[in-house]
């Protein structure tokens, strides 16, 4: 993609400019892997790590990218999506960097992927055991809404003091009659830590529960990693008499006719109302191909 990358790759995998296989140096990757192991042992717990400056801007997936680069092996097949779309520019840049610095294969097809880096979606296909799903996380702490100071919220997590976030939800119910979380709805992981699922829609939050794949969450700007191991209980915070609700749409996908997927608006040219289409473009395409 960029001439700069061509230049540094020209010297082979070792990188004639001193860049390493998978871009990061070995010590950096080892540190990220150690942090990930710790995160998997403490589901939903935010673990600090030495977040490096990456060749993407802070807030543009630098945390997810560090996880991906520390995790990827040459045998992996890598898929990168942004808002469900493989062709989004940010996703293309990250996929290019990952595959070209590691030799891993790239794919857009979810069933073929073994490692998926995502921004704000979980692919519609159920992910199999062994698949690693890497989330890009802008705000790691679900208690940020209760208190902006990390020193305060760290203590709350340590003491299991989630009264603040429950009160927040309660006040939402009283004032607005529903939870004001549209995405990023906080979840309780295996009866322990409360965790932000990253800004995925509620449709996807519900799909984290008991999922067979590994979920790894990276917040580069906030230098924090966390994880959900396979087959882990992930419950959106909700009251017994006011259950968690996922998004409802006004009709099926106009392209593939799906009624069960997450839809986004498209078009609306010349006064026509916008149309609803699948946000997971690969899933939508495969459905249409099968229907033919």
């Amino acid at each position, binding site marked *: 993609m*960029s001439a700069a990358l061509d230049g540094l790759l020209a010297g082979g995998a070792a990188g004639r400019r001193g860049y390493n296989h998978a871009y990061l140096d070995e010590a950096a990757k080892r540190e990220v892997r150690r942090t990930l192991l710790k995160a998997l042992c403490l589901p939903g717990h935010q673990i600090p790590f030495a977040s490096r400056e990456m060749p993407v801007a802070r807030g543009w997936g630098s945390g997810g990218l560090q996880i991906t680069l520390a995790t990827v092996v040459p045998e992996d097949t890598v898929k990168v999506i942004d808002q469900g779309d493989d062709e989004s520019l940010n996703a293309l840049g990250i996929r290019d960097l990952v595959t070209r610095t590691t030799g891993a294969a790239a794919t857009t097809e979810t069933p073929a992927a073994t490692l998926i880096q995502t921004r704000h979606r979980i692919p519609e296909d159920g992910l199999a055991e062994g698949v690693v799903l890497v989330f890009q996380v802008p705000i790691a702490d679900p208690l940020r*809404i209760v208190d902006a100071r990390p020193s305060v919220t760290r203590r709350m997590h340590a003491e299991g003091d989630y009264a603040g976030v429950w009160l927040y939800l309660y006040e939402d119910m009283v004032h607005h009659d529903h939870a004001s979380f549209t995405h990023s709805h906080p979840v309780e992981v295996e009866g322990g830590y409360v965790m932000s699922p990253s800004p995925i829609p509620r449709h996807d939050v519900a799909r984290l529960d008991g999922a067979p794949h590994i979920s790894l969450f990276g917040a580069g700007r906030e230098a924090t990693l966390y994880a959900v191991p396979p087959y882990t209980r992930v419950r959106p915070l909700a009251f017994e008499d006011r259950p968690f609700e996922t998004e409802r749409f006004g009709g099926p996908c106009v392209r593939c006719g799906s009624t069960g997927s997450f839809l986004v608006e498209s078009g609306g040219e010349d006064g026509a109302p916008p149309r609803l289409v699948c946000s997971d473009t690969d899933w939508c395409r495969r459905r249409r191909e099968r229907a033919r």
Partner: protein
Amino acid sequence: MYTTILDQSGAVAAAARLAREGAIAPATAGEDDLCRLLPLLVDQVTAEAGVFEPRVCARALREARGDAARAVSLVRAWAATLPRLPECRVDARAMRPLRRITPAFADPPGGQYLGATLDYAQRLLDLDDAPATGPPPGDAVPAPAAARPLPAAFPRALGGLEERGLVAEPEAIAGRTGLRHRLCRAETGAMTALAYSGIRGYGQRSDPTLVELRQGMLPLRVAHPDSGEAVHAGEVAATLAEVVLYRVHDGHADPRLSLGVGATCGRVERRAISAALLDANCARAAHDASPPPCDDREFLSVVLDGQEAAGFVEHLKLPHHVTFTSDLERLGALGEEVDG
């Protein structure tokens, strides 16, 4: 000596000479060269100065040895000596677009046009020496097969939301226009930091979405000083941003979005986005009793001007031994009281 206020020995001139030692001749780094080499730095100075005169701003940057704050100071002081023409209003819809993205919508009416941007290029420092010919390495992206020509105008991406009644009517908030003017010229880093503090959680819970970002040239039409007829006076490079905040207005529930608008001279896009965020924050918090800094119109109006901030912070370099003597005298007196 530092305390030489009267400069009897020519110390000021000698210090300035020392500061310029080793500088290359102005002819070697001409204004046009600087505009081409550092276009966004020049744009930042035009925006913070509030004077769209890129060549003058480039000259100011050179004379200020790259200190943007001093360059802005030079440009504003220069512009203050120029006669004022009658005010003219610019219609944002008349912008000749060069770039338009709509993060809120994948496929908006009118489409999205990346234009010139390094946003999605990987941030890899190129350590190769630049080739003798050809474009600089950062821009060495293959030319697109066939770039779509930009349309002459775009519909507002917000239009559809407004038609559906999803955007709160703009409230007549005292001082909102004034704040927007201040944001337009605000210091880039300070404005970015305050906008960041809001989305980082130090403001009210906010969930902003950038609906549309537009960059292009705004045509200026002014009344001719003699005939009074409207004449085309040129174009100003500008960036416009529209942000909406989800959910709460004025501390109570409202099912509509709060709109924030940001504009800047030049192409430093984080300026327009930051301004739009702060404008939206202040609109939403207009009736709050004690808003946090990033939602506080008065606070933002006071602190965001880079000249005022840099000037007052750096004035601490001036001699303060008289006032400090008073401090010390009082400390001594207090000490005696304690000891006594």
